[in-house]
């Protein structure tokens, strides 16, 4: 088995992840990679409540997840890695160059972000981060649930980089 999905989702554990992806992919464990959640027992209890008993949830800092990734990949069950934002995914991918695909599943509205899709809003910095990920050879696509259309990063970002757009 392998890690079936590397997902960026600011809601982390929620219905789309646990049910929407979890059931069709037969996910046996979720690795929640977030430095803040990894050091907070209360947050972990909250997210633990959100997964069914047959699904294991592992909490990790980026550093620990990089260190343990080979173990996740060798697990006999299907796994799903979820991170809260693009910067965290970029750090994770830098530590684990074998990651070839990243799913943008949910980045919601914030004052400095522009809407790209119904479920994806990006700031100029985040657009740059996604471009860098793609330039590393990672296949970056947006898709909130399995039945939705897969949106390639080129379509997500458009052809014009944010710095050129304001000129």
């Amino acid at each position, binding site marked *: 088995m392998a890690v079936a999905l590397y997902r960026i989702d600011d809601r982390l554990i929620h*219905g789309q992840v646990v049910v929407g992806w979890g059931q069709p992919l037969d996910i046996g464990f979720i690795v929640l990679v977030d430095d803040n959640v990894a050091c907070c027992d209360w947050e972990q209890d909250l997210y633990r409540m959100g997964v069914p008993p047959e699904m294991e949830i592992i909490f990790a800092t980026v550093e620990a997840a990089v260190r343990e990734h080979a173990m996740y990949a060798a697990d006999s069950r299907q796994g799903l890695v979820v991170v809260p934002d693009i910067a965290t995914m970029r750090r994770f991918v830098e530590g684990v160059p074998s990651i070839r695909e990243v799913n943008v599943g949910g980045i919601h509205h914030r004052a400095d972000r522009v809407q790209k899709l119904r479920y994806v809003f990006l700031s100029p910095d985040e657009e740059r981060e996604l471009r860098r990920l793609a330039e590393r050879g990672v296949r970056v696509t947006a898709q909130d649930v399995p039945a939705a259309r897969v949106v390639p990063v080129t379509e997500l970002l458009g052809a014009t980089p944010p710095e050129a757009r304001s000129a």
Partner: protein
Amino acid sequence: MTSSGSERDTENAPSAPRAIVAGHGGFPEGLVSAVMQISGCGEVFLAVSNSGLSGADIEEQLKSRAASAGIRVFFTDLPGGSSTLAVRRLMRTDPGLVLVTGANLATLLEFVFQADSDPREAARRSAEKGRAALAAFGGE
């Protein structure tokens, strides 16, 4: 407010909302609409969808809607859904809040007719009613 049938008949003014129904997509509005169709008491609930919102925005919206209406009871759809997690976060600073997750139409209808009950007790009974309403038939 009263649950007495005779008084209800004479009081045409809508009741103040007593609970929030929160969840995915059109689930909250749909459920409240169904309550309205069956009982005529849809105004007991405020419907709050989590569509298009971040976890922080869901929490903020639930907090502000509850505060402005004086609501202490929440019904959500999925135990692991973002609305449920948001209410659990609110409960951390306000343990007096009451949450029923996995809510269905039977759950809400039970709550509607317990206007005079303590909210905790009403929520507990509603959860039992909703659980008992689940059944599967056929396939034998």
